[in-house]
Every structure is written in C-alpha cells, then in structure tokens.
C-alpha cells in the first residue's frame, strides 16, 4: 500500500484520525502479507480445496517441493535399534533432475572412516526404470543392485527403501481421503497406490500421506505392506521455507514399527546450486579420482 505523501497541517487533533488510518492500514497490510505467505494455498474461497483430487494435491506437492533440479545436502544419519544403540554416519547427497525427466541421486559416505568413499547411485529414467549401483572403495569396483526400485529394501542398513527415495508423480494412483487436523493444522490425507505395472515390484500396498494444507508439504507418510498392514512411518520435522513456495524439512525420521528401528536424517547443510551437482559427479570412474568425493 502506498502511503500518500502529504504535507499535514501542524499538529492538531485533526491529525489523529489520519494517524489512526495510517497505522490501521499498515497493520492490515502486514497481516495480509502474512496471510498470503502462510496460506497462499488456501484460496479465499473454501470450496476450491474441496474440489481438489488426490492427484491435484500431489501435483501441487511435486511442483512446489520436489522438482528442483540441483540439490546438494550434507546429512547426518542416525540409526537407532530397539534397545537404543546408535550408529552415526555422515553422508553427502547429490540430486539432479535432467531435462528429459531423468532423476539422478548419489549418496557418498564420509563417516565412519571405514566406509568413507562408499557411494550409491540411483538413476530413475523417465520410463520408470531405476538403476542403482554401489561403489565400494575397499573392493575397488561398483556393482549394480537391480533394475527395479522395488528390489532394494532397507537401503544400506537404514529403514529407507530405494523406492522411498526415488519416486515420481506418475508412479502412483492417488486417492484423497477425509482431511484431518493435526496439531491445529489442517492436512490433506491422500493414499498413494502403486500403479498396476509396478505391482509386484513395490514393497508396499499403499502409502498414506499427510499433507499440510497451508504449504502442500508432506509431513507424514504411513507405509502399508503388501498385506495392507501398517508397519513404517516417515515424519518430517524442522520445516523451512527455502523459496516462495518451496519448503524443505531439515529432519526426517523413518520408524520401522515392526522391527523397532529408526533412521533419523538431519540435514546439516543444503545448497540448491548446479555447481554443487555437476553431471560428472555421477560417474563412478571419475568419482574414484575425484578428491571431492574422496576415496
């Protein structure tokens, strides 16, 4: 709101209403601004949200949060077993989305020292095929571990499956359920079912996603096994807005309820920059000599 610049008469009681109007306008615009930040998803008319389908919601989710092409993260990964023993790993994560929709991910271990340089790379082609390779520096070579994302469970001893990390909007059929309010925040609830072509490869019958309505961020995912039994849950914490609409969680907690084991991923640093994720980084041969990756 622009303030009209006027010469006001010298102080007199007639100026008070103008001050009041000024301050009220200022306050209103600030509130309006806040509202537009927090609830840009909540359209002024409530009926809009009711008309959104599961696919619509997920489209919003992906468009806002999941498609930034170059992300570099430094992560601390803490694995905790059922009696409280902890394993701590330091990992760097590189992700890149190519123009043809191919997604590439690379995880490189920095700590403990015995596993420094271990790298796992997965590539999801726009056909849906996922390839992944693992490089073990001590062995001096990489090996592939299958061409289906569904074939890798409990990736590297964590509670994440490969398909938890590599997913695309087109991989699922979405069904919207009744909205829920959790912690005074309204959430969409959407169930994601693997498409028929992927059934038999996925380890899940479905996932149930809890998406904040204010920012379309998935804060919780419940995983159901092929017998439709709930057994795993991912929750996202310490949400940060990184862009106009894009949010990221700085802490992810995956809990395997059945095995009473958890994996906590803490993002220590995140950089959205192409320079941090050059294409050659995904080349293992280059990786072996690249000091940035380590060996």
């Amino acid at each position, binding site marked *: 709101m622009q303030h009209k610049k006027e010469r006001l008469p010298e102080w007199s009681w007639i100026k008070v209403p103008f001050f009041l109007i000024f301050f009220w306008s200022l306050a209103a615009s600030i509130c309006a601004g806040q509202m537009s930040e927090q609830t840009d998803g909540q359209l002024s008319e409530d009926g809009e949200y009711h008309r959104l389908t599961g696919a619509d919601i997920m489209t919003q989710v992906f468009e806002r949060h999941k498609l930034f092409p170059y992300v570099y993260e430094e992560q601390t990964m803490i*694995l905790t*077993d059922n009696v409280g*023993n902890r*394993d701590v790993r330091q990992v760097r994560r590189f992700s890149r989305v190519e123009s043809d929709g191919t997604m590439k991910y690379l995880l490189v*271990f920095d700590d*403990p020292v*015995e*596993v420094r340089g*271990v790298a796992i790379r997965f590539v999801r082609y726009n056909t849906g095929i996922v390839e992944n390779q*693992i490089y*073990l*520096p*001590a*062995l001096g070579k990489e*090996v*592939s*571990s*299958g061409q289906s994302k569904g*074939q*890798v*469970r*409990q990736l*590297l*001893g964590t509670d994440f499956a490969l398909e938890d990390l590599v997913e695309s909007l087109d991989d699922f059929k979405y069904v919207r359920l009744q909205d829920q309010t959790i912690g005074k925040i309204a959430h969409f609830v959407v169930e994601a079912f693997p498409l028929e072509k992927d059934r*038999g490869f996925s*380890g899940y019958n479905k996932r149930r996603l809890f998406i904040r309505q204010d920012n379309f961020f998935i804060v919780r995912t419940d995983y159901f*096994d*092929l*017998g439709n*039994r709930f057994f795993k849950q991912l929750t996202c914490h310490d949400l940060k807005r990184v862009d106009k609409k894009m949010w990221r969680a700085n802490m992810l907690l995956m809990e395997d309820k*059945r*095995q009473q*084991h958890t994996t906590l991923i803490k993002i220590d640093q995140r950089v959205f920059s192409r320079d941090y994720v050059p294409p050659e980084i995904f080349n293992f041969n280059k990786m072996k000599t690249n000091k940035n990756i380590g060996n």
Partner: protein
Amino acid sequence: MFTRFLMLGANHRLLTLLFLVLITCIAGLGLPRLKMDTDVYSLIPQSHPDKKAYDQIVQEFGSDNRSIVYVKDENLWSEDKLAALERLHFALGSLDAVKQVDDLFTLRSIRGAKGNIESKPILEHGPKGVAAIEQARSDALYNPLLQNNIISRDGTATALVVSLYAPYEKNKSDSQINNTLEETLEPFRPIFQDVFQVGESRINAELRSVLHKDLKLLAPLSVLVLVAAILFFLRSGFAALVPLVTSGLSILWTFGIMGWINSPINILTAMLPSLVVVIGSTEDTHMISCYFQGVFQAQKDHRTFATRFMMKHLGVPLILTVLTTALGFASNVFNSIGIIRDFALMSTIAILANGLITWLFVPLILSVFGPTHSGIFKANKHLVGLPAVFVKMFVHVKRRFPRAVLVATALLCVFFAYQFSRLLVTNDPLSYFRKDQPLIVDTQTIHENLAGMKLFFISLTADREKAFLEPEMLKKLAAIQNFLDKQEVFDTSLSLADHLSLVNQEFHGGEKDYYKVPDRKKLVAQYLLFFHRRDLKNYVNHDFSRACIVVRHNISDSSSLNRYIRELREVAPGIVGPGTRVDIVGENLMINEAAEGLIKAQIKSLGILLAAIFIITSIMFTSFKGGIISLIPSLIPAILMFGIMGFLKIPLNPGTAMVAVISIGIAIDGTLHLFSRYNELCRRTSDYDAAVLETVHQEATPMVTTSLALALGFGTLLFSNFTIIAQFGALAAATMVFALFANLLITPIIMSRVRLVGLYQILALKTHKEVLEKSPLLQGMSNYQKRKAILISELNEFDKGQLLLEKGTLGRSMYLILSGRVDVIRKKGDEERRVARLGPGQIFGEIGFVKEIERTADVRAITPVEVLRFDYKKLEQDLKFFPFIVAKLNFNISRVLGERLANANEAIDTQAFLAEKEPGE
C-alpha cells in the same frame, strides 16, 4: 518308660486321635494352595558359574528361548502355500508373547552375479508367478546360512523361528503360551502336510500334562497293587487297610505342607504318593505281622497283648528305620539342583510324617479294632506260601553252599561295580519322555530335516570396540566353527564370519573360492552396510566388541554333550589367543552340566547315608565290625543296581539318581529288623545257627511281603509316561528283589559267622557295673582287660524256673550272674538236693569251661536271671592275642575252683568231725 513312649498312641487314644485330626485339618487347608511347576529352569543350579555370563549374553544377543514352527509340504513353493506361509508368519508375529519371528520372510538373501548384487528378504511377500517363486526358491536353497537351518536341503520343509518373551515378562504361563501357539497353528494344519511347533513352552506344557496323567493313574494303581500284595501274603483285609490309611494321611500332610510353604509339585515330587504308599507300608507290614505273632501267643486280651508285643519288638527298629530312610532322602537337601533339593526335603517330610503317623495311629487302631485271629500263623508254626519257599531255599543254601554263595555274590558285585564305571548321565528334559511321544518325534523330525532345536552360544569378547571388524578376529570365529565341524556332533553353527563370507562371495560373482572372511577391515565395514542391524544382532553386539556363534544341536545325552563342550572349552582359548575371552553358555548346557552334579550329589548322599548307617549300627552293636557288616546287605542292592544301569545303558538322571539312596534306606530297614531279632534271640540261646534260622523264619513273612509288595508297587511306575519315572520304577523294583536276596540269604550267612554285641548288652552291663567289678572272675584285671573279657561274652536272660544247665550234658560255657539267683541242684534218683544258691557276681559252669566233661549238676533260675556266658572256644579264639587276659581269667577261675575245693574240704572235715564226736558227746 521307653515302652510307654512307644505305646503312646494306644494308651492315650483320644488325645492321639485329636492330635492326628488337628494336623490333618491344618494340612488339608494347605492343599488348595498347591501348585505344579514343570519349568526346566529348576534343573539349573543357581550357583552355576556360567549363569552370569549367560544372562549378559542373552541380554545382548537375544534369548535361546525359541520355539521352532516346522512347516513341511511337497508343494511348499507354490503361490497358495507361500501365501498361507505368509499369513502364518504374520499370525505368529502378532501374538503378544512373540518378540520376533525369523523365517524366509525376514532373512536376507544376498546374491551376486555378473556385476550385480541383490540384497533382499527371501520372501518379502508371497511371490506371484512361477518365475518369481522359482527365483525365491533358488535364493533360499542357494544361501548357506539358511540351508539345514531355515530350509531343508530339498526345500520342502522350512522353519519359522519364534523368539518368545519369558513367561514372567508377559504374565503368561508356559501352558498359555503353548496353547496360543497351537491355536495359531490350527487353521494351517489342513493347508500344509505337516505343521507343528517345538520349544520350551511346549516341553514345559507337556511335562505338566503328562505329570497330571501320571498322578491320576499311578497313585491309585500303586495302592491297588499294594493292597493286593499285602492281602495275598498276610491274608488279612485289616492288614491291607492300615497301610492305606497311614499312607493316605502321610500324603495329605506332605502335600498340605507343600501348599503352605509354596513348594510346587514337580516331576520328582509327583512320585511322592507312590513312594509313600509303598515305603510307608514297609513298617506297617512288619508291624501287622508282628501283631499277628502276638495274637498267636496271647492267651487272653489279644488286642492289648498283641499291640504291646508288637511295639516292644518293633518299636526300636521302627524308629531306626524311619530315621535311616528319612536320612537317605534328606542327604540331597543341599543339592544345587532345585528339583532334587525340593524332592529331598519333601520326601524327608513325607517319611517322617509317615513314621509319626505309624507310631501313633497303628497301635491306636490295632488296640481297638485289631483282628483277634491270625491267618498266617498256625499252631504248628509252619510258614506258608512264598515266605516258606524262601526259608527252605535259605536253609538249603546255608547248609550246602554258604561259602560259595558269599564268593559268588562278591564276584557279582565286583562285575557290576566295574559296570558302574560305564554309567551314563543325563539331565536333559527331553530324555524324560518316551521315544514315541509326539514331542520327541517332532524334535527328531526337525533335527533330521533342518537342525536340532537346542542351541547354545559361543561368545568372544575382545578388549576393544570394533574388534570384530578386523579380519583376524573374524577368522577366529571361523576357526572355532571349523573345530565344531570337525567334532561332527553339532548340526549347524552361524556367526558374523558366515555372513561376511557370503557377501564376499557374492560380491565376487558368486565364486565359491571367495566364501571366506574379507582380508581388510574397510571391506568388512563396507560389506556390513548391506545388513540391517536386525540381521546381525544375534551375532555381534553394537560396538563390535563382542561376537557370538550360535550353535544348534540335538544331543540329549548329557555326558556326550558335556564331553564335547569340555573339549571345546579346552581348544577355544587357544584359537582366540590372549586378550579375548571365550564364554560357552546356553540354558541347555547349564541343565546338562548339572547332570554331572548329579553323580557328585549321589556319591555324597550315599556317603552320608552309609556313614550314618555305619554310625547307628556301630552304636547298636558297639562294634565297628558290626557297623561294617550291617552295611554289606545295604551295599549289595546298590552295587547291583548301579551295575545294571551301566550294563544296560540306563542313564543316571534326576529320577534314577534317587534309587540308590532310597534302596539303601529300604534295604537297611530289613537288615535292622533281622539283626535286631537275631540279637534278641541270641539272648535266649547259645545255639547261634538255630537263632539265625529262627530269625529268618520269623522275618521271612514281613520281608517277603514288603519286598515283593514294594517291587510290585514300584513296578507300577513302569506305566508312567516319563522314562525317568519308568526307569526309576524298574530299577527300584529290581533293587527290592536284590535287597530281599541280600537280607534273606547273605545277611543270615554273615550273621551266623559273626557274633555281635548289642547296645542292649552294653547298657545292661553298665547297670551291673558294680557286680562286675566285685566279681571274683574279673578280680585283679584292669578296666581294659575287663571290657575285653566281657565283650567276648554274651548276655543271656532266663525266666524263673528255667534250666540254665542240665546235669549230664556237655558244655564249654561258664556263666557269670549279673542279676537274679540260681540254685545248683544235684539229683539222686528222684531226690533233689540244693547244693548252693548263687547270686550276682558269682560264677557257675567253670568246671566245664576248664575241661569238657559232663555237667555235674543242674542250675535252675529261681528268679529272672541275667547272666554273661563265656564260651571257651570263642574265648580261646578271640583272646589268642591277649595271653595276659587269658592268664588272668584262668587264674581267677583257678582261685574260684580252689576256694570251692577248700570250702568243700572244710565241709567234709566238719561233717567227719561231727560224725566222730556224736556217739560220746
């Protein structure tokens, strides 16, 4: 006074009855509190040195309390069967008592080929399609960690290993857990060819159920057999009823006390009713038999006389036998194995209770309702039936082959003593069941198709973190496993080394040459990234400072298992080297190692019992020789029993371990009765052979009755569903027969060759101490010499009017009067003339002692008389090394003779003088 004490029950009937009723009521109130406990944990001594290490290892690596669900089907690898298997997996996992399920759905397959590596559960979900199923089957059969462990060689059988919470953790009993598992399996039985589960909960539950059946069957059967046996031998319904009542009360008191003190019924104490019925009837039968003798002898007031007769003759043996039998059981009361300790305590209480009841109740009931006629004692005193056969056999053998019998028995004992060295020992709960029991058949099936269900841990603890990332340490695990393979007795062993070897192989394209531990620490750490913590938590701890080898086996024979474990314990430290501790622990190991404690406990109990018997009988006979001799008839059955066990490979287990002690306790009962009766008879006759024969004659009926009734009663235990109880029954029955043979054949032969002085005699001598000191026969002798001379003599008692010596008979005995008076009488035709009246301290028969000639006069007791009889031959033999004592005795005899001669000459001179004086004066 002692007789009054023994007759307490008969003399104060109302008070006695009130007392018995009161105790019975109090005990009865304890019965509802009685529980049953078949937990095999009670077989582990609390003081076991490995228990602490075991508890730590269990906490770190998980319990060895696992049940195996076995599933077999020829078409296991089909869609519907695998779908059913998955349902079973989840059904088990959802049970409250189940901690974890390890099976094809959770265990990892790692396969590598042509640059690819796959790491995933064998069956994460029921695969669909032939190709997927075949792949899964191939993965399962390929994996060496699963073969003969989770999947059989032919792939048609698989195991779901169910780790359970301990019953106390979930407030459930073993029976409840077992029932839950069975209910869960029930819907799957029609689907698969074979489905069952085996584990500790089932073992405990079946122990309990079989125990119930045994109690319901065996106790009434024992009673029936006992009643029939006693009825047959004693021909009296009353005689059969009395043991029932005394045993019934004893059992009620014992179980009531158990209820009050929270001592549960276990597999050993479940034998108590049978034991009490048969053992308790021993004394009752002796007493009834003696009562009938009293009835036979009574001229009026049969019941009172017979009851008093019975208690007078059997009071002391009753007390002694109750004490020795109780002692036999009690000797195990400090055993480190809980189950044996409980049995020792409760059986001691049962025997003491039975003794108390017998002492009070039997005289009470007999004095009021006792029969007034005896079916077994006829006017001609001839024995009838089986007892008569035994007596005839004894007489024949004793007459013709006494030495041969003794030698043959000694040789037999030597042979069986040697067999004892081959005795096996076992404490394994599975060995309690018969081989055809479903539980045993099922465990055998698992062993044949997969791996034995018993397991133990070999834990290696290093002195630093991450030790088991080092290849050298991992190779030590592999080396120990190689040693286990060489022993060829264990089914499988699994460790971290196996997991890493498999990964190493697969990362090299599946080449078998690479099935070995990686040679670099970094490679180990990187391989380990492929495992979830869950995959390894049974094999290595979190900081990799401790690793565990899980060994599965099916060995039930404790001595074999203990031998192999001992071997392993000797070798393992050498393999691991300094700085690494090796612990070899497991619940079944501790149970089996407790078996060795059984032998030690047995030897200790036997030692204590024999020592106690030796002391008691030595006191009784005031002679160590007597103590040793009375041990012989007790040792013979025990030696024969152990020898037969070794010969027939019947193992020593918590059941059979009881037999030796019980058998000695019972055998000594017969021995004490025999010796007691024999000593009593020896007081009245100098013909020892006749005394032996009379002893056998009198004791044959009760001994044959009790021994055969006991043998038959124990024999009923052969119907038990537990092998240990059936073995116990068979051995105990055989031991009763051995004891009968020893008591009715060997003991009398020994008795006839040995003279024993009884406590009675010594006590009697003590009361006549003054008489002895003033006696001219023992003048001038030191106390030691007097005692020596007295101990060679025998104490005889005669009633008023009885003839001690008869004129014209030959005899080499001399008599010293302790109490009473005798007349020395000369006969001339019909005329009798008293020559002398002798009293305490004086001797007679000394002429025959000095020279074997016909007695010159009769000696008759004019009051009840107690005398010491000195036999010339015995004195000559026993005192040949004591010439001074012999000389002294001879001197004193000479002096007595000289004095008598002098007195006689004086009497003759006086008579002659008076005869000369009479006409003139």
